[in-house]
């Protein structure tokens, strides 16, 4: 495979190290986490969700998790996109506006209502919308929902994406991308923490 293993690269796992050996015992998980990355960022069909949009959403989602090698990687990926460099600053501004801590949100009315926790409902700035456009604005608002308050997600959020020009297939890939990055960022963070303790 020509692309380096992204989790190993971002977690700083060197060939022959103890963590390399542990990861090698879950080869199918390791290879398919990588295939997930490749199918999201080097898809065979980007017709419903462009590569530029994928890079922009990824930079936003990983930036919302705080500064890290993962956030830097996707920011650089966006900057490297032919049309991406002009978006980097606008995405950084939206990350700053959207930063908070989660998960929060509401449960269905009933015994869990006592656990409801209010928090930021992120909406993109007018300046951001003028740079990023309607489709990306809707995607970033949805991504923020999934990052911080996934239990608030509702059918109305699907309607908002459809109204902004997202197809059913595009919505599935968008959800996969946000959800996958939530996984990847945590694996990298966890493995880095373990490597640091052992250093």
């Amino acid at each position, binding site marked *: 495979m020509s692309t380096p293993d992204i989790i190993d690269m971002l977690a700083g796992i060197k060939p022959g190290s*103890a*963590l390399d050996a*542990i*990861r090698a*015992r*879950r*080869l*199918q*998980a390791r290879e*398919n*986490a990588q*295939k*997930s990355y*490749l*199918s999201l960022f080097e898809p*065979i069909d980007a017709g419903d969700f462009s590569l530029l949009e994928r890079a922009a959403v990824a930079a936003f989602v990983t930036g919302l*998790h*705080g500064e890290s090698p993962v956030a830097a990687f996707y920011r650089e990926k966006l900057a490297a996109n032919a049309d991406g460099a002009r978006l980097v600053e606008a995405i950084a501004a939206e990350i700053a506006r959207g930063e908070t*801590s*989660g*998960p929060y*949100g509401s*449960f*269905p*009315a009933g*015994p*869990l209502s006592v*656990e409801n926790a209010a928090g930021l409902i992120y909406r993109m700035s007018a300046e951001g919308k003028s740079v990023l456009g309607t489709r990306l604005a809707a995607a970033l608002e*949805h991504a923020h*929902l*999934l*990052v911080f308050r*996934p*239990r608030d*997600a509702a*059918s109305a959020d*699907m*309607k908002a994406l*459809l109204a902004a020009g997202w197809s*059913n*297939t595009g919505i*599935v*890939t968008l*959800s*996969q991308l*946000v*959800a*996958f990055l*939530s*996984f*990847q960022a*945590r*694996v990298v*963070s*966890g*493995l880095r*923490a*373990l490597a640091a*303790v*052992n250093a």
Partner: protein
Amino acid sequence: MSAAVNPPVAFTQDELGWVSWIEPLPEAELTERHFAGLVDRARAKSEYFRLLVRDPEVLEARTRTDKDIFYNVADGLPRAERELAAAATSRYNGCIYCASVHARFASTYSKRREDVQRLLDEGTGADLGGRWNAVVKASVALAATPIAFGPDNIEALRSAGLDDAEIVDVINGASFFNWANRLMLSLGEPSK
């Protein structure tokens, strides 16, 4: 859009249904590319998988990641504790559907159904004994945004008897459910 369902309002180990908010692919339209994405052909009967198979390559890679993290028990963490990490993550993120499936699995493999039920009823602060508390706490720290997992979690897992390979299983299992929860919660809702 699907019609009204009968959503559960509490965490449960009962079997739940799940209804999509957007259109799954009709079974009759599935091609060999889609069947490859489904991995198991029987999943063509599931509304959830016929929705996710709109992007077959991502679904296939995700499914194979999932299977190895949870089912490859040649070594590493016992299956019950991988399922505990999944259930705790789902409880913390608020995914009633995922929590129901993985709480059920955790009960099956651990034979500790009442402890699992207390995780669901009381939340991730429930006292489940030292080893399980360490797994739950690590899962919660990983699920927080910003991610709060650190040396204290690793120390607690080690004190509870986990070696590094088992700690990596906790990291993978809990992290994976931050993926799964966000798919189930964003694309549809559970039904009783």
